[in-house]
């Protein structure tokens, strides 16, 4: 069993699962009914991607199922980026967070398509179509909120100021990343940081928003060091399977 491939795959699934879980919390809470449906679609895509990654992990592991991976690991074993676990806060906050991550995922999956691991490459081919749509959605809203009313501009600027500190982590590589990059399977995200920045800058100009200066960046997701609300997210998600370990659902 290739433990490195297993952990790398689970990591990719974690980002999708955690963001999917956050997005699903918008159900019946959207600013319009149409938007409720759009956000649910995004959440479904993300859960689908998580399932694809975890199903591949199940094959590699040959012991734990995709559901075991999702529902039976402790919070500190999850290795998602911090940015995806941030609380939704308000619609503007969600859009800004999603926009940064969607830009990243788009560039990431573009490169994952070329992975020497066929399973991961296949997942990337399918997922990038969904991510293109997510990016379109978050970009459109970023612009409408940034260039809407004074109030909306203020709200998303505040959100941006708060979220910016979680963006550097997207481009940090740890030992596992380095190993997977060197064997042709993984993606070197540090390599596309400037491309990401250009995409982001372009949209921010149109949205009349500014990047905050002198930000102290925060990371720790890959080491299992998560934010305060993460434990609650995981415990809510895992509650039933943990309470009834012998039950099948």
């Amino acid at each position, binding site marked *: 069993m290739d433990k490195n491939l297993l952990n790398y795959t689970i990591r990719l699934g974690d980002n999708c699962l955690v963001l999917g879980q956050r997005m699903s919390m918008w159900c019946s809470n959207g600013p*319009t*009914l*149409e*938007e409720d*449906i*759009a956000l649910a*679609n995004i959440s479904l895509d993300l859960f689908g991607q998580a399932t694809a990654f975890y199903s591949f992990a199940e094959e590699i592991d040959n012991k734990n199922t995709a559901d075991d991976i999702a529902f039976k690991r402790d919070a500190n074993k999850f290795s998602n980026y911090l940015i995806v676990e941030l609380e939704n806060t308000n619609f503007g906050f969600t859009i800004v967070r999603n926009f940064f991550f969607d830009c990243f995922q788009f560039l990431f999956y573009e490169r994952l398509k070329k992975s020497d691991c066929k399973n991961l490459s296949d997942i990337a081919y399918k997922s990038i179509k969904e991510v293109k749509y997510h990016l*379109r*959605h978050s970009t*459109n809203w970023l612009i*409408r909120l940034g260039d809407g009313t004074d109030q909306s501009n203020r709200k998303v600027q505040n959100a941006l100021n708060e979220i910016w500190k979680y963006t550097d982590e997207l481009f940090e590589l740890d030992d596992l990343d380095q190993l997977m990059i060197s064997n042709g399977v993984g993606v070197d995200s540090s390599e596309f940081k400037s491309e990401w920045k250009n995409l982001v800058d372009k949209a921010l100009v149109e949205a009349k928003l500014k990047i905050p200066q002198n930000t102290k960046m925060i990371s720790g997701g890959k080491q299992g060091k998560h934010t305060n609300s993460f434990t609650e997210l995981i415990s809510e998600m895992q509650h039933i399977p943990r309470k009834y370990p012998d039950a099948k659902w």
Partner: protein
Amino acid sequence: MLEENSEVWEVFIQSKNGLAHKHVGNLHASDKKMALENARDLYTRRNEGSCIWVVKSTDIVSSESEDSEAFFDPSNDKMYRHPTFYKMPDGAKHI
């Protein structure tokens, strides 16, 4: 505070390449980009679309039902427009 009501858009979906667009309903959106995306999310979740049109409801021009007699009845008695009106000799093919 801006007035709450947003624009209503009628949605037409082409389910497969080659077929005509069909009216499926309407939705609310503030601009055409949003309208198109909302239509995609609302009306094509079950793989029912290859092309979407959205049109502002206020741009639709409709015939009035009180005019339907004058508009549509005259076409009722011009059977010579239908191929079945014509008697063909037995045995004649491809005509």
